[in-house]
């Protein structure tokens, strides 16, 4: 790897670089701290490669236009934070039911409401999963470093295209704004996935799943297929259907396309877990605090390990269950008042005792706090 590809870069900057490498050709958004760099860099770079950027009139329009861009056939992204993520929820549901590939970056900040606009938080974890109304499956990925922001963004585009779904990059203010070393791969070294489109003259039904496919093929508007997209429950033809049987089939397909492919979607990382008797589960920038603390605890003779979900949704259910069986106690460390801990409790059940360490006052968790909590409960 040549040295020219090594750079000092902000997380938000790495996200845009990766998006471009993944094939992003369209960005629509609205400025909001701490995600604004994503819009600024997209505005600067997209027209240079013939792509399009538009600053919309509000957050809702930002995601709506991005969905429109994707329907017209371009890989699209929008970015936001805090209040903006709340505003985008309805159309996240639209992208889910209409099965439109889209990447939504949420640089998490302190909330609720305007909250702590310039401070980090991880309080949107549950909103990422359940923020829009109704049942649906979602993919959310959380990076802990600038390099991982790059890798995850590529992955987010690939998953969006492969599964025809909105994918949320759930980063936070710490990762978004810090500058760190990144090694940008050569374009040829990256796997890029493009949505499957119907062939010319093909007998096409927009929501018909063909043998061997994971999701129905998606024709861009204007390619000669003249089909209908709606946020109503619809059948294979794309037209609305009030049939309860149809709604059941469609909802199950929408959910299972993601749930059944966990092996492909779920990413996680383990540190000193082999012989661990206690585990700390943490994600995003907080996992770095924990890693530091785990080293300290190990030096002091405690057999503690770190399990780090990279894919937040769908959760690494199988692996987390295994962690629960391996260890006696688990601490979930996150920058919120107790969110992902609920998912961990749901998965491990009575296999291990689960504790929470977190706060949402705008300050990151310090390694010493994790060490203290571990000593207290382990």
């Amino acid at each position, binding site marked *: 790897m040549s040295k020219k590809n090594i750079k000092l870069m902000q997380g938000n900057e790495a996200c845009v670089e990766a998006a471009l490498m993944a094939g992003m050709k369209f960005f629509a958004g609205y400025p909001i701290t701490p995600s604004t760099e994503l819009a600024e860099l997209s505005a600067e770079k997209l027209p240079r490669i013939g792509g399009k950027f538009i600053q919309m009139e509000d957050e809702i329009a930002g995601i709506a236009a991005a969905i429109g861009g994707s329907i017209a056939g371009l890989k699209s992204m929008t970015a936001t934070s805090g209040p903006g993520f709340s505003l985008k929820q309805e159309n996240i549901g639209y992208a889910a039911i209409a099965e439109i590939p889209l990447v939504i970056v949420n640089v998490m900040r302190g909330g609720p409401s305007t909250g702590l606009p310039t401070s980090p938080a991880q309080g949107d974890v549950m909103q990422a999963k359940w923020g829009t109304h109704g049942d649906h499956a979602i993919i959310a990925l959380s990076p802990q470093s600038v390099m991982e922001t790059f890798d995850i963004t590529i992955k987010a585009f690939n998953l969006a295209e492969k599964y025809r779904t909105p994918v949320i990059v759930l980063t936070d203010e*710490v990762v978004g704004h810090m500058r760190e070393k990144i090694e940008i791969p050569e374009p040829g070294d990256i796997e890029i996935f493009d949505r499957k489109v119907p062939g010319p003259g093909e007998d096409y039904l927009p929501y018909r799943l063909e043998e061997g496919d994971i999701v129905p093929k998606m024709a861009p508007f204007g390619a000669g297929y003249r089909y209908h997209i709606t946020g109503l429950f619809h059948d294979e033809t794309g037209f609305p259907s009030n049939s309860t049987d149809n709604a059941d089939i469609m909802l199950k397909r929408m959910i299972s396309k993601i749930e059944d492919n966990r092996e492909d979607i779920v990413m996680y990382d383990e540190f000193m877990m082999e012989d661990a008797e206690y585990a700390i589960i943490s994600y995003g920038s907080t996992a770095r605090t924990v890693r*530091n603390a785990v080293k300290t605890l190990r030096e002091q003779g405690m057999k503690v390990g770190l399990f780090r979900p990279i894919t937040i949704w769908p959760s690494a259910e199988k692996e987390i269950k295994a962690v629960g069986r391996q260890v006696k106690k688990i601490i979930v460390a996150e920058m919120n008042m107790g969110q992902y801990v609920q998912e961990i409790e749901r998965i491990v059940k009575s296999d291990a005792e689960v504790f929470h360490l977190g706060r949402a006052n705008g300050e990151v968790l310090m*390694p010493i706090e994790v060490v203290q909590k571990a000593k207290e409960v382990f």
Partner: protein
Amino acid sequence: MSKQTQIRLAGSGGQGMIMAGVILAEAAILDDKIAIQSQSYGPEARGGASKAEVIISSEEIDFPKVIEPDLVLSLTQEATEKYGGSVKAEGLLIIDEDIVLPEGFNQSRVIKVPILRTAKENVGRAIVANIVAVGFIAEFTQLVSRESVEKAVLGRVPKGTEPMNKKALSEGYALAQSVK
């Protein structure tokens, strides 16, 4: 912690302390070291006392924020009062020559350096004080090589200002040699 050096650069908003931090981190990376640069946003970033933080290390950095700096460099009285005390006991505080140490401040290793005056008089522009500071830190601590610092500076400053910034760097080196 011994393999890590935590640096906090403080000044007033607009003095380019973040740029200085970015340059130090970039130089470290060019030297094949590990580095992280971060800063605080919000009202702090708009005038008043502002700070930038850099961690330079020979191994992976887990926790990305500066906890207890080994080195604090401060260019203003206000920033010194706010951040000067954060330097760890055996750490080093570098302040501009006109700054009066707050009462009760008992840091043992304090160096007063004419950074602002050097920028103004020797380079001709107060705006390059941050680059003089970078030169000073690089030379005084030997954390990053001159070659990499120069490369980082030239990669980040506006076109046309390269000679002025190179001059600022070498003035920083000279200052460091004079106090060593």
